[in-house]
């Protein structure tokens, strides 16, 4: 089984979000970047397939040179090699088209990604990739087993879980549950040393046109101060929720 894991390079979850250049660019000043948490769950599942079922694992990112430390971290966690498509990722469909080209050239039969990136939150690249490749697709995956080319998965639905069956070739967008948080791996020194020697191939993008673009970013309007209600006066809270906020 040849697995490709798509890795997004995103600001750490605790980052302060600010914009520059007239609110058109994300301000990376002082921001620490990490592997997108959803992608990390899927990468960890891929490592399991590598160790237990002899799969090969390649990681890929569409981005500029600044994303390479994130790919090196994925290599330190245990991926065999990495590919960076040398293009700024700003449009989901364009990114999916670049990835589709990587999948075709590499002959991968399983593509793992995260449900969404925590920066653009588009949640669209995995589904678009599957559609472009005519692969099967499962979104929001919280459990997955592969037996030959048969695949059994579960996904989160509103109020529960759904069990699905399908076959390779397949694109899966995972989230917590595809592995548990305790299974996530922190790269050890040996992994970090080995990662330096693993191949990280930079490929130039194919020509595509963007379908969407961000004209500007904005932050939510500042919130008014909290109205405090005395703990002995819950009637007042009920009154405010009923008459002022009109939510009960």
């Amino acid at each position: 089984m040849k697995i490709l894991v798509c890795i997004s390079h995103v600001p750490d979850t605790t980052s302060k979000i600010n914009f520059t250049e007239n609110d058109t660019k994300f301000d990376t000043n002082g921001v620490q970047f990490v592997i997108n948490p959803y992608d990390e769950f899927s990468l960890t599942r891929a490592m399991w397939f590598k160790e237990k079922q002899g799969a090969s694992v390649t990681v890929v990112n569409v981005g500029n040179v600044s994303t390479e430390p994130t790919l090196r971290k994925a290599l330190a966690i245990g991926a065999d090699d990495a590919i960076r498509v040398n293009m700024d990722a700003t449009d989901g469909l364009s990114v999916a088209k670049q990835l589709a080209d990587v999948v075709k050239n590499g002959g991968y039969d399983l593509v793992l990604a995260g449900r969404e990136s925590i920066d653009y939150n588009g949640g669209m690249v995995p589904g678009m990739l599957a559609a472009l490749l005519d692969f099967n697709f499962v979104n929001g995956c919280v459990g997955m087993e592969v037996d030959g080319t048969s695949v059994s998965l579960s996904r989160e639905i509103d109020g529960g879980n759904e069990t699905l069956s399908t076959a390779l070739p397949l694109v899966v967008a995972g989230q917590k549950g595809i592995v548990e948080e305790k299974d996530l791996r922190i790269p050890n020194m040996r992994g970090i040393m080995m990662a330096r020697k693993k191949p990280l191939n930079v490929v130039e993008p194919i020509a595509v046109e963007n379908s969407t673009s961000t004209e500007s970013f904005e932050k939510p309007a500042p919130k008014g101060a909290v109205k405090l209600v005395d703990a002995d006066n819950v009637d007042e809270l009920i009154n405010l929720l009923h008459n002022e906020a009109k939510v009960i």
Partner: protein
Amino acid sequence: MSVLVFADSAEGKFKKSAFEVVSYGKKVAEQIGSNVVALTINANNNEELYTYGADKVVTVSNDSISTFNANAYKSVIKQVADSEGSSVIIIDSSIDGLFVAPMVAVALGAGYASNVVALPSATSPFTVKRKAFSNKAFSNTVISTDNKVIGLAKNSYGIHENPVSGTTESFDASISEADLGVKSEKVEKVTGKITIADADIVVSAGRGLKGPENWGMIEELADVLGAATACSKPVSDLGWRPHGEHVGQTGKPVASNLYIAIGISGAIQHLAGINASKVKVVINTDPEAPFFKAADYGIVGDAFEVVPKLIEKLKAFKQA
């Protein structure tokens, strides 16, 4: 060039989001000077959609998709979009909507913006405001392709009545074996409980509750309010509550009208996941808890004293 909205249903009954996307689609159609067509799959009472402005309802009945199947649904939406000459497709950004919409976008060669929170601010260039950076910001996104797919965030536009005398037409969609490449084997659902996605009110509790044995009052409060129950990440990590209740950045997103946080300090990742809720109430012993900065109303106090009082008073309020 009509506007096509996909009005989702389960077991024949429209989801609340169906009325919201139709309400929204009606306004978008007015903006671009067109009419709105609603597509339904195996739904009953299709005329309900006229109330929200659906000029035309296209119904698909097909036993091979008696439950949601993303790829087959995509195929149906594409066929109806082609037949109706639709250039703007609107799908909700629910779990299922987010599953199907990217594939629809590719099938129609469309640019796609998900988690959109408002009507297009301009139609040329076509510009929509969408959530980004996990609710910490918005992106004003231009969709530059001729066909466009909009994913509407839950509870962002609201349900608005706009009655029209619509028409209903059935459509014979063809579903191939390849469309059914992913098969549903089993659906496990908690029954008789309001889900977080569907709830107008969510009651959520954190580590301040001290142990899973203390959730009785949380469930009772939720019961009184007709609310869904949720929890913080540490609580689900500790196994006090099922994973499905975890709300926050890596858990489920919440966009309810009212969110009540009890014994939750308000870590930035938690707030990111619940920020889309309209009104937030916090009950916490620690006045320095970050949640007080994010909340609209707050009580500094011990949950074990405040919550039982609140339940009692709410019961009286509901009876009044």
